[in-house]
């Protein structure tokens, strides 16, 4: 039965998260934007204490709605939220029960911890099949070598806590995608170091690290999924696909993050107009609307479109339905929608939009990342296109 009503628990999750966004995030938002690489320790401790309440581990609808609210507060700070995050999602999606237990349990106790995911390299981002980092088996160990860049919370996971990072490396270069595997590396493992933190356009509170692996040895059991390299025909890359399935869970979550930033900008615009006594006259025919009203309605409609696609992708995930197409639809739409919404908001608000006295300009900078990470807009369009056409990677590049 088609229904759009939130359950009382979901309503409650939204409320709790919104309150946290207003009280904990917004007041320090500007500070950590201007003091890049400084850690919001107090916030981190508070969030760690409250983690049960906000429910960061699960990918439930309530969690996604909560994430939207927190990002409405501040997307960069939200990314600092301790928890298993993308690395955890990978373990969850393709790890064995034993691995889930071994790697994820830590996130329920002790001091704040982070999970991270290291896929991207200087030479390849979108084209994950071109990864050059290597994993070589040596007895009951894997030896990792290579350099990973742009690892979100890489430093917090490895240096500031006993967290984990899921690293992508090839066990057999000649095998292409089939040779690509993911490995869990725990903080404190010798042969691994954080090289630098990036300076960014937005989400500055979130650390984005370069990690170097030099003969980094990890237990053989830290490989996620099967160690076997199956050289099937080129169109079938089953092992890789399974790992890629992580994205079906994480893309809608990133979309939810994006929605929060978009809505922050939209709310700012609407509040400003309200203060000025300007009303959006929904229901009037378009020929009667002012250009401003049309712009605002357009922004709202795109936000709504993105939100509903996102909710659908998460709902399907929770129903156990394959959602690869819908997850990419949501991500592609949302990344672009919030990029445009925030840019339009800066335009509409004039001096209020451009001034660093207000947070709007920051939201525009923050929003842009959503069109880039977890698959750029183009990569997600590519996935949607392949799905609707029934094409393989080779048929549509």
């Amino acid at each position, binding site marked *: 039965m088609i229904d759009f009503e939130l359950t009382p628990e979901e309503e409650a999750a939204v409320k709790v998260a919104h309150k946290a966004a207003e009280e904990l995030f917004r007041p320090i938002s500007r500070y950590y934007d201007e003091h890049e690489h400084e850690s919001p320790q107090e916030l981190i401790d508070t969030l760690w204490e409250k983690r049960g309440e906000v429910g960061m581990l699960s990918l439930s609808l309530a969690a996604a709605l909560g994430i939207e609210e927190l990002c409405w507060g501040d997307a960069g700070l939200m990314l600092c939220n301790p928890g298993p995050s993308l690395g955890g999602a990978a373990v969850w999606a393709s790890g064995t029960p034993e691995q889930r237990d071994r790697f994820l349990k830590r996130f329920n106790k002790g001091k704040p911890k982070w999970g991270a995911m290291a896929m991207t390299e200087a030479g390849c981002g979108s084209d994950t099949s071109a990864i050059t980092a290597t994993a070589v088996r040596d007895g009951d160990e894997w030896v990792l070598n290579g350099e990973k860049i742009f690892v979100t919370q890489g430093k917090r996971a490895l240096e500031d806590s006993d967290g984990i990072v899921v690293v992508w490396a090839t066990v057999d270069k000649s095998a292409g995608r089939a040779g690509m595997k993911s490995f869990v590396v725990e903080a404190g493992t010798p042969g691994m170091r954080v090289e630098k933190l990036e300076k960014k356009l937005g989400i500055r509170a979130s650390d984005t690290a370069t990690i170097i692996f030099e003969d980094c040895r990890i237990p053989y059991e830290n490989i996620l999924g099967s160690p076997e390299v199956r050289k099937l025909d080129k169109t079938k890359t089953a092992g890789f696909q399974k790992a890629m399935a992580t994205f079906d869970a994480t893309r809608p979550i990133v979309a939810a993050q994006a929605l929060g930033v978009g809505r922050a900008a939209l709310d700012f615009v609407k509040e400003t107009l309200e203060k000025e006594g300007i009303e959006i006259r929904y229901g009037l025919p*378009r020929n009667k609307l002012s250009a401003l009203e049309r712009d605002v309605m357009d922004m*709202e409609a795109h936000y709504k479109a993105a939100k509903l696609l996102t909710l659908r992708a998460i709902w399907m995930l929770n129903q156990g339905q394959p959602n690869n197409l819908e997850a990419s639809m949501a991500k592609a739409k949302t990344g672009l929608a919030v990029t445009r919404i925030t840019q339009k908001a800066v335009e509409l608000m004039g001096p209020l939009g451009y001034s660093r006295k207000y947070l709007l300009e920051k939201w525009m900078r923050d929003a842009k990342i959503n069109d880039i990470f977890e698959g750029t807009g183009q990569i997600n369009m590519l996935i949607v296109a392949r799905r609707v056409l029934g094409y393989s990677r080779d048929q549509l590049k």
Partner: protein
Amino acid sequence: MISFSPSEEQQMIVNVVKQFATDEMRKVYREADESGEIPARIIDAAWGLGFISSSIPEEHGGAGSEHSTITGSLLAEELAWGDLSMAMHTLCPTLVVLPILEMGTEEQKRKYLPAFCREKYKAATAALMEPRFNFDPYSLSTTARLDGGNYLLNGEKCYVPLAADADLLLVYATDNGSNQGFILEKGASGLEIGAPEKNMGIKALSTYELALKDCRIPRENRLGGKIGCDFNRIMNCSRVALSAMAVGVARAAFEYSRDYAKERVAFGEPIAARQAIAFMLAEMAIEVDATRLMTWEAAWKLDRKEDATKEASLVKMYADDMAVTVTDRAVQILGGHGYIREHPVELWLRNGRGFAAFDGMAIVYKEIQHYD
């Protein structure tokens, strides 16, 4: 609890209509567009599926299931996927039935609803649009004035579908500053129906201008009697129905151009293997889905009897733009062949272009020229 799956019953309706659209409507839509006429058997067959009578209470001859705007949206999308003219023709009586069902007096229900529960299609229509520049449905020029026991209606209406055949006509007019509906029966004195209008699209649906010159109707024929009607809600229902139809037309165009792109070879490969084409298709798929979800959400709100003005207006605006973009892209993907009247995409573009101009119930290509 959030859910995106239609009920079993709704899915059954969708399947039946989809089948009907494929087997019947899609076979004759081109001919209907060229000739301006829809074969009567199609309309009778569509009518025979019983969707309109199903929500009429048993005491008035219907099946008595509660009217659901969501089900209505699913139905409208499938019918419009088949053909927009036929969809509008088939659903035209709802422009009268639904307002009477929701807002009519007991007397009005008893008097008018049973006729829609019979086997044969019964034409009925509504008149909202007015043939003037800068039309705004919230400030109508057509007036209704009490004169003893009667209302006198004066004004001009345009783009009234099926006006010449309709047994019942619901005319919207301002009654002491508020928009109200007035039920006219066929042949009402002072009601003059013009020649069929000629439009760019939806050509198989005949629409008319009409003039009301001291058109006299009994006082009881005001929709909802003393209480009157909730005009805004009627507008919102119509916006949702039109958005659902826009989704149907756009989906048709998306599917057709997708299949074509996989067949058509250029430079040694199917054109779909090129990102320029594939990304257009991806965007079409995303926007069709997004608009459908927005339509459902607005419909859901209407079914809960909440004010859906915001949702309905947003989805209507979004659907208007989406329908044009998607149908235009479909023509583009077919290239020169898309421009030829052998393929349906040019027809869908002409039809899709109409949505931006329908607010309320009628088709206003004139408006488009002024404002877009």
